[in-house]
């Protein structure tokens, strides 16, 4: 077998003829500079717009600064804000409203999403088309969705009550979704589920698809029932994906602001006033910048802490 000797390129010959450090230069910018050149813009941007403001927020949380009175004397208040937040029943009510929203949306979206993914995985004819169609609610702006569902939820002129009446016979004006203390929290949960169930379904679908056929075939050979297969094969292998979906939806819904604010303004009263709405009112309507910075820090630490714990659990599940 003949060996093909490549004709050395000019650059190579130059490189091999010169001392090592020149060779590296002659090949263009050194690796080190390329690395920093590539990474630097991102780091600088993040420092300027993510990290520096975060530090500023932490600093502000110990002061009495108010953004609408920039010339007032700045005073340090220590941990006053933190103490008053942790002792404020209204803030706890907001956290409760947020928790209710997060928990129930996760539950509903996981159940519905799993069912949807399972059905789509039956691979009936045209399933790709229908999958794309059910993704559409996700593409909308949550603010615009909240605003429009307000219209849909009106008892007199909105479609929702009439559809429910059509299906169940309950007269349309006899109940109201966003005006009632009992139903308003469910109204926001319903809209969020409408928007994001397809997202959860997609993730779980990918999980279902990642299970190789031969495992099921082996189970069939072992004459395992379909139910047994589901419990022992499908569920455990899809679990990391479910957990991932739960993580993403959980974080997003913890931060929820636009959809709920436009749908209910946090009402009736403060029944659906989730944490971000309280924060917005404190920061941009009451202009209590120091106070709201403390609240922001608390929220961040909460989510960060929870997410950390959760991700560790997720990694352990993944490694099984």
């Amino acid at each position, binding site marked *: 077998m003949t060996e093909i000797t490549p004709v050395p390129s000019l650059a190579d010959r130059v490189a091999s003829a010169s001392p090592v450090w020149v060779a590296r230069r002659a090949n263009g910018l050194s690796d080190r500079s390329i690395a920093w050149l590539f990474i630097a813009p991102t780091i600088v941007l993040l420092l300027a717009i993510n990290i520096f403001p975060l530090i500023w927020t932490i600093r502000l949380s110990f002061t009495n600064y108010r*953004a*609408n*009175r*920039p*010339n007032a004397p700045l005073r340090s208040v220590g941990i006053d804000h933190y103490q008053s937040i942790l002792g404020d029943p*209204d803030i706890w009510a907001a956290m409760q409203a947020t928790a209710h929203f997060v928990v129930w949306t996760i539950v509903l979206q996981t159940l519905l999403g799993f069912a949807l993914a399972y059905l789509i995985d039956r691979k009936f004819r045209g399933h790709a088309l229908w999958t794309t169609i059910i993704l559409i609610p996700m593409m909308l702006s949550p603010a615009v969705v909240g605003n429009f569902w307000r219209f849909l*939820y*009106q*008892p*007199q002129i909105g479609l929702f009550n009439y559809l429910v009446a059509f299906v169940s016979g309950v007269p349309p*004006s*006899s109940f*109201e979704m*966003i*005006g*009632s*203390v009992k139903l308003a929290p469910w109204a926001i949960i319903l809209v969020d589920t409408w928007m994001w169930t397809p997202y959860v379904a997609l993730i779980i679908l990918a999980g279902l698809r990642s299970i190789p056929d031969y495992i099921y075939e082996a189970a069939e050979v072992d004459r395992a029932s379909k139910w047994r297969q589901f419990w022992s094969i499908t569920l455990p292998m899809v679990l990391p994906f479910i957990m991932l979906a739960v993580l993403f939806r959980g974080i997003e819904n913890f931060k929820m602001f636009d959809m709920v*604010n436009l749908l*209910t*303004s*946090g*009402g*009736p*009263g*403060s*029944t659906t006033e989730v944490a971000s709405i309280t924060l917005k*009112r404190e920061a*941009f*309507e*009451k*202009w*209590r910048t120091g106070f709201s910075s403390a609240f922001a820090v608390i929220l961040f630490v909460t989510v960060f802490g929870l997410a950390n714990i959760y991700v560790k659990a997720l990694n352990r599940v993944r490694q099984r």
Partner: protein
Amino acid sequence: MTKYLLGAAALAAVAALVPVAPASAQPKTITLCWAAWDPANALVELSKDFTAKSGVGMKFEFVPWPNFADRMLNELNSKGKLCDLMIGDSQWIGGAAENAHYVKLNDFFAKEGIKMDDFMPATVLGYSEWPKGTPNYWALPAMGDALGWTYRKDWFARPDIQADFKKKYNRDLAVPKSLTELTEIAQFFQGREIDGKKVYGAAIFTERGSEGITMGVSNFLYPYGFKYQDPKKPYSMQGFVNSEGAVKGLEAYKALFKCCTPPGYTDAYMQEGLDAFKSGQVAMQMNWFAFFPGLYKDEKVGGQRIGFFVNPPEKERGSQLGGQGISVVSYSPNKAEALAYIKWFAAPDVQKKWWALGGYSAHKAVLNDPGFAATAPFAADFLKAMGEVVDFWAEPSYAQLLLAEQKRVHDYVVADKGTAKEALDALIKDWQKVFKDDGKGN
């Protein structure tokens, strides 16, 4: 495919750096910011006169009421240059004055011979002065307004309805002379079938997000005896905010809400009230006088079908003050032209035209004219209302005070939390905290 999309994205990034408006080789224009409602459209018409006289073009930025305060206060706090003229709400005066958002107008008024005496005193106090009661002017009274009521005169005039009412309440169906009578009338109409459709008693303010329910409930609180503070001791609120009368007034508002409003009416403000009244859903509607010219001209419910009345008394008289003054924003690069607009606007003949087009002039030349009451069916009621208006706090921290009342009142009236006394007691605590932070009061 991806390459094209990314290319388009790159183009967009470059486009961002191109300034939005071309460099001005055009005639000067100034921007006036106000809320998006009927009077604003009238002002657009009126301002054509200014452009004709001065050659300065007018641009307008109108934002609906529920978002108006948020957006404009944000704009002022971020030293934005969007607005040259601002017709800001009366409650913003304190904050705008103390934080130098508005230009102080005393010198300008003196130079141009604009006298505050020419304007109705309630409007000067409410829209221009800060601190209240001192001759420091930050706005020219632009739009007088108060919270009044409209009703379906045609329904009240029907013989069968009159007979039914007389049978039930032993008196004639007429414009209510007290809030109790108003509630009775609302109860009477609630659920009644008129022209084949079910109608409801009254459309009142219940909005949670900005200021709706506070404005509405105030129209009940004032006649029942609510006061913001001890007249002899500023910022002392115990016994005034939560007096027996105040508690009764708050309970009465909740009773009206529960018994006699359309279904789903839990977050309603001016726009929803107009919708409800214009679509024939309600017999009475609480709304700002500002809308009455438009309602009177409405094809379906205007003309002979509509009547107006000032907020009825109970133990005392009182209407919630609305209205705004026009100010020059201190961050504006066009202050000279903005001041010229104010000078033009203050002239009596312009004020007369303002009233004719649908704006509520605050100028004495218009309001004190003997023929004024005859110019419109609501004019007399407007004068009466302006004679007994009470305004919300105009402190620099007004937003915190307002948000506190919004929460406590909505919690009680709509979300059924606690009792009226508890709500008012909690409100006093909220307000005391705000004043303490500001170093005011005890």
